[in-house]
């Protein structure tokens, strides 16, 4: 069944949209990531214009993360205090990201920067996470006790303006928190992703946020940041396709519920290991697209519609 998308101005199979929304939603609920880093490339590949795909996926990520965030909230898995700091700084970063997005699109280098950004970011984080989770799993198999590492101090804990985050049982400086938010806001809106896959490891490894509030807090932050980004994209590029976003949302919210349920049966290290593999696969895919001879060295874009 075909459905016409009024902003993308093309007709797409409805079941395909709901289907990929559901599949990505499942992963989003499982790992606590927005899923944008999978959904955006999938849509571009199926013929949706890049700008519409990026802007509409931000809307879908809001929906997919909302159901996840709510179920984590009910279980008390969100540190609202910490999330507030992250949201404020990431919205600020998103302003910069949306501006850079339109500048790069005009100069024709958007695809390159997106591919490079995905490669560097996903490759780095994927390797880091995989290393850590494999080590944790091995340690557990050997029968050792996995200790919570919150008491270990690094240079981050020596910074000024310390704030107590009760739920996370942390007493740390707000500077790294704000920096993480700013960075994720910028990169997330530029690459069309929620940034959950950066946020989760950043909270775990840099801030030592305990595992039971990491995913919930990350989801809450993604909801607020992507809501702001959706509005920014709607105002600046007018390329948010509400019908496209809605089809993805329907699949995404359903998938996210099953994902969150499935996540209960897996251990944290296993989850992180699987996510790391997924992230690395996408990174390799983008790396290959940069290095391999493209099928077509020519491409086209609409500079502006003459009305």
């Amino acid at each position, binding site marked *: 069944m075909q459905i*016409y998308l009024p902003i993308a101005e093309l007709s797409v199979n409805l079941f395909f949209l709901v289907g990929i929304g559901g599949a990505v939603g499942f992963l989003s609920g499982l790992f606590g990531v927005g899923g944008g880093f999978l959904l955006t490339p999938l849509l571009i590949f199926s013929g949706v214009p890049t700008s519409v795909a990026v802007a509409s996926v931000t*809307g879908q990520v809001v929906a997919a993360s909302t159901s996840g965030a709510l*179920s984590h909230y009910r279980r008390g898995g969100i540190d609202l205090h910490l999330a507030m700091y992250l949201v404020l700084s990431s919205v600020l970063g998103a302003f910069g990201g949306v501006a850079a997005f339109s500048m790069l699109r005009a100069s*024709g280098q958007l695809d390159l920067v997106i591919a490079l950004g995905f490669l560097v970011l996903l490759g780095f984080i994927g390797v880091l996470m995989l290393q850590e989770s494999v080590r944790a799993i091995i340690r557990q198999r050997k029968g050792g006790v996995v200790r919570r590492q919150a008491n270990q101090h690094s240079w981050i804990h020596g910074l000024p303006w310390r704030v107590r985050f009760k739920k996370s049982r942390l007493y740390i400086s707000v500077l790294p928190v704000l920096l993480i938010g700013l960075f994720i806001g910028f990169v997330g809106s530029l690459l069309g992703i929620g940034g959950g896959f950066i946020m989760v490891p950043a909270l775990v490894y840099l801030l030592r946020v305990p595992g039971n509030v990491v995913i919930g807090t990350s989801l809450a932050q993604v909801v607020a940041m992507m809501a702001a980004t*959706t509005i920014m994209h709607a105002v600046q590029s007018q390329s948010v396709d509400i019908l496209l976003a809605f089809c993805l949302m329907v699949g995404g919210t359903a998938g996210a519920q099953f994902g969150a349920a499935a996540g209960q049966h897996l251990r944290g290290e296993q989850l992180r290991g699987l996510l790391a593999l997924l992230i690395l696969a996408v990174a390799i895919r983008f790396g290959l697209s940069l290095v391999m001879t493209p099928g077509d060295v020519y491409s086209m874009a609409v500079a502006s519609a003459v009305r």
Partner: protein
Amino acid sequence: MIRLAALMVLLLATILPAQAERLISNVSNTTVQITSSFTGETLTFYGTIAPDAGAGPEQVQGPYDVVVVVVGPAQDRVARQMTHQFGIWLNTHQVEFRRFPSYFHVLSSRRLLEIADINLLNQSFILPESHAMMFPNPAGFMKTLVFGRELIRLMSEQDLFGVQEQGVQFMSDTFYSAQLTLPANAPPGSYIAQTYVFRNGEIIARRSEGFSVRKIDFERFLAQTATQSPLLYGIACVALALFTGWLGGVLFRR
């Protein structure tokens, strides 16, 4: 004074060749409506070559060739070329084409180059390439030519450009019809269908019809809201997303 008028008439007569034929043409739809289930639409262009006022039916002598040129709304487009630099592929060259047709299809009764001379086809903008070369481009002639051809190829792959040299059928010596299927990605806007009648490589009659492709009902409302009140539209998107997410959570809660 009478002499001058006679001279004028004589001049006009030499400039405008005496035309014995005129074209009566029409298109099946004047509007193509884009609804939520729009997957493209087939249009029929038809017409007949009739004797002009004052000419008898014996003056309508074929064989004729008919060419129908369908042009969609203009857009500024860029074509980009990737080259291998520092081990990776990146866009290094680009040419912008101003007021380039977003849709362009040519239907003809036989091969275009057999119907008329390439120069005449180019002057009348019947060949796709002529649109790329329509305006002087700061990129230079050769680059414009190369990139223009690539742009046309890319648009042909999306069915936005095309030449169908068997696209016009003659039902009789003077009655023709042509079918064109607009794809689902046909850009909305005003379209012009220009029909040319050729005989012996000359254009002897022409006519144009307009039709429009436009969104209606809900699709139109959405597209209008998105451009006219983008802030409201953005907030509505977020509200919808939050509601859907919440509803999904309630429905699936176990």
